């Protein structure tokens, strides 16, 4: 019995070792911090038009960054596709990303960092989500800086101190208003005894469930709760064929009637900050051309429209279609303060602030 078991085990181990040995030379390996649930069908579309096999490792930004750093020179990855500027900035600081050719960097010039190490892929906005059964928008402050003064929200505020978009926002606060203002804001917020969530989706659900009244989040989490990803509205005029296959029903269960709404602070307030997701080619890539082709694909109208209709994020290149429940991109951009995203690279002081405030 034991001998049989050991034998079968050894055979399995050897077979699996042979079967899935390492990376093949010609394949494109993407490390994606964007979740599989959101972007997998886009990758499927790319697979059909790519000339090399495409393999994706999904994880969180920081897990993948940690893996990339531990892998060092031996990393099999070609592309790092991240959720946040902070993660990309960290990758740049650690010398993981190569400089992109001008043709790529100029596609989305408004948000591309001047070092050209990565390209933005989509835009999202910070908002204050609120439960419309419990809160009326007239009572909400003009600036996110005044939110801690609303003592009626004691124990009823949700935030995500561990989540990268929130940390990007705190970095922006620190960089524009100074570290002391940021520190005060954080400790005043802590005095409100906020509920901390690890990610936005459960927080928005808690908002719907009446566990909290207001939540600092990104705009598309609210839209995804209420509208899901738009069904069948996916129209790319130039490309044919693929875009009408709707076999992957990727939307979350939408509830347009959910008592959750978005509140925008006054124009130019940091609470409306525009943030981007992005991607870059890795130094260790043995497929730099294939990597750049994939990045170009992410900026294509096909992929940009996908982001808008399925994920409810804003395109970074003009011309991509946007579902009608999404506020027009120009209007949303007008609300966000002008901000050089490269300033978001230095996460360390932000993490220190969050730890000092006891939020991390």
């Amino acid at each position, binding site marked *: *019995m*034991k001998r049989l*078991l*050991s034998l079968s*085990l050894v055979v*399995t*181990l050897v077979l*699996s*070792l042979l079967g*899935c*040995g*390492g*990376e093949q030379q010609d394949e494109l*390996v993407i490390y994606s911090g964007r*979740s*599989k*649930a959101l972007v997998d069908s886009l990758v499927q579309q790319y697979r059909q038009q790519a000339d090399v096999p495409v393999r*994706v*490792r*999904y*994880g*969180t930004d*920081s*897990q993948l960054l*940690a*893996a990339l*750093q*531990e*892998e*060092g020179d*031996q990393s*099999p990855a070609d592309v790092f596709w991240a959720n946040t500027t*902070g*993660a990309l900035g*960290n990758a740049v600081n650690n010398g993981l990303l190569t400089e992109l050719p001008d043709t790529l960097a100029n596609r989305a010039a408004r948000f591309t960092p001047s070092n050209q190490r990565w390209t933005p892929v989509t835009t999202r906005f910070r908002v204050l989500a609120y439960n419309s059964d419990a809160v009326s928008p007239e009572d909400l402050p003009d600036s996110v800086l005044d939110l801690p003064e609303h003592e009626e929200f004691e124990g009823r505020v949700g935030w995500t*101190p*561990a*989540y*990268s978009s929130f940390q990007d926002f705190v970095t922006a606060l620190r960089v524009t208003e100074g570290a002391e203002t940021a520190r005060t804001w954080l400790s005043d917020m802590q005095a409100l005894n906020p509920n*901390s*969530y*690890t*990610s936005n*989706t459960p927080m928005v659900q*808690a908002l719907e*469930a*009446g*566990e909290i009244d207001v939540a600092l989040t990104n705009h598309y989490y609210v839209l*995804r709760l209420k509208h899901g990803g738009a069904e069948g509205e996916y129209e790319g005029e130039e490309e044919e064929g693929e875009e009408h296959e709707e076999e*992957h*029903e*990727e*939307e*979350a*269960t939408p509830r347009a009637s959910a008592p959750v709404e978005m509140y925008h602070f006054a124009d130019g307030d940091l609470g409306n900050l525009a943030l981007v997701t992005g991607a870059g080619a890795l130094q260790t890539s043995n497929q730099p051309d294939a990597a750049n082709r994939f990045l170009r694909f992410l900026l294509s109208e096909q992929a940009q429209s996908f982001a808008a209709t399925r994920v409810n994020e804003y395109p970074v290149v003009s011309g991509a279609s946007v579902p009608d429940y999404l506020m027009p991109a120009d209007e949303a951009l007008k609300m966000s303060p002008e901000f050089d995203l490269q300033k978001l690279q230095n*996460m360390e002081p932000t*993490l220190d602030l969050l*730890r000092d405030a*006891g939020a*991390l």
Partner: protein
Amino acid sequence: MGSPHASTRPSVHPHSQNRSPARVLDTIRRRWYVTIPVAVVVGGVLIPLVYLLLRAFQADPGTLWDLVVRGRTLRLLWNTVGLTVGVLAGTSALALPLAWLTTRTALPGRKALTLLGVLPLAVPGYVMAYALMATTGEYGTLAQTLGLVVPRLSGYTGAWLALSLSTFPYLFLNLRTAFLGLDPSLEESAQALGRGRWRVFVQVVLPQLRPAFLSGGLLVALHVLGDFGVVSLMRYDTFSYALYIQYAASYDRIYAACLALMLLILTGAILLLEARLLKGLLFHRTESGTSRTAARYELGRGRWAGYAFALGVAGLSVVLPAGTVGYWMTDAAAGGVPWAGLGAALWDSVSASAPAAVLAALLALPVAYLGVRHPSPWTRVVERAAYLGYATPPLAFALALIVFSLGAVPFAYQTLALLVTAYALHFMAEAVGPVRSALYQAPPHLEEAARSLGRSPLGAFVSVTFPLVRRGLLVSMAFVFLSAMKELPLTFLLAPIGFETLALNTWSYAEEAMFGQAAPYALTIMFVSALFVGVLLLREQASERPAAAERT
């Protein structure tokens, strides 16, 4: 360990007196087939430890000290210990009555109840947490169907309930194995000497269950220490939650390594405590003749209370999560079931989990054997080392294996073999307990008799002891298989690229609130795991039957 205080111990094993290094070396030479797997185990545990120490020492000592010594660390410690103690109490309250009901009473349908007591292992903790959260609250299922508004579960209560419900089978199975292996003669003697049933249970039966309590409780405790899925969903601030946040949100591997080391120190303390409590417990039979199964109690009217308890537990721990996922499924029914993706994910899950289960059991056998048959400080360290691997935070474990495999065996990086090894090393602690319990109840005299009849040590073990511990081994494999099916962080980082298990799909979709898409994957995990548990119980009954036949 010839300490004379354990009065319940019927015999002292002759080998247990040897402690001198020369004897240890001699043992190693004679038992090389034991030392190889033991070396693998110790190595596997040391790699992450060395990695964490390396990373932690990269930190600037001043900054590090400030990070470690602050109020938050103390709060984390308090919360972690509080949750662990609470879950231990909760699981005991669920597992002990259920184990007794299914082994010592004549309750009709107890086989089915046994199955219900094991099935929660098929439910991933995070699914349990999602289910509890979906049930409670103003917009929860309870409110919508019965108009019953209970506050949405979160924090300590939520984490405690979800963890108790999803981990009590570890204790249940250990206690069950112990109940089944109990020699009834002690109880009968006590009863013959005029003790009442209740006093016999408390004074004679319970003490004999101590090894099972300890190994089951240890698994539960380590599970609570390491779990991040439940505590992160329930937002309860424990060490592993803080650690998860460090790895998931900040890009700081160094502070994370420090937290991981603190968690390991806590685990070390628990392991020491368990070792102290376990000291000197040997409960195998010493008399001649074969053992009998104890007489079963007739419960009479009490059986309705028994059913109510068992079904209540099953309702919360199995029906509730399965029903919730089933409800998500109806949500997604319009979209159709993604059969192709499901099949691929199922194959990925099983092809990693099944070999890992076998490997873990094979590694655990010599470790447990050494610990039970040759108890010495050395073997105890080895046995404890196996548990340390379980308690090493999986993300740290995965990063350590990345560094190690790229440095030492680069061809193995991102292969299935590495993932299988990682699973096996990580979950081996789950495999040690059942084997150890089984070994405690397998008399060493039998093996010695076989030796004196001319068998080699290995031959004596294979022909005599192995059949006796087979039940324990099967339980070991089941534990590891079920855990590996649900595993997330190791799979995230170590799986071959594009390798996507059922658990990864479930977590990924559920995290984006695409519960409809998560449902088929979650259901498949539960279904396959349940099937596996069912087959296992059938095997266990098959191996019980010959024994029963011998009796008559």
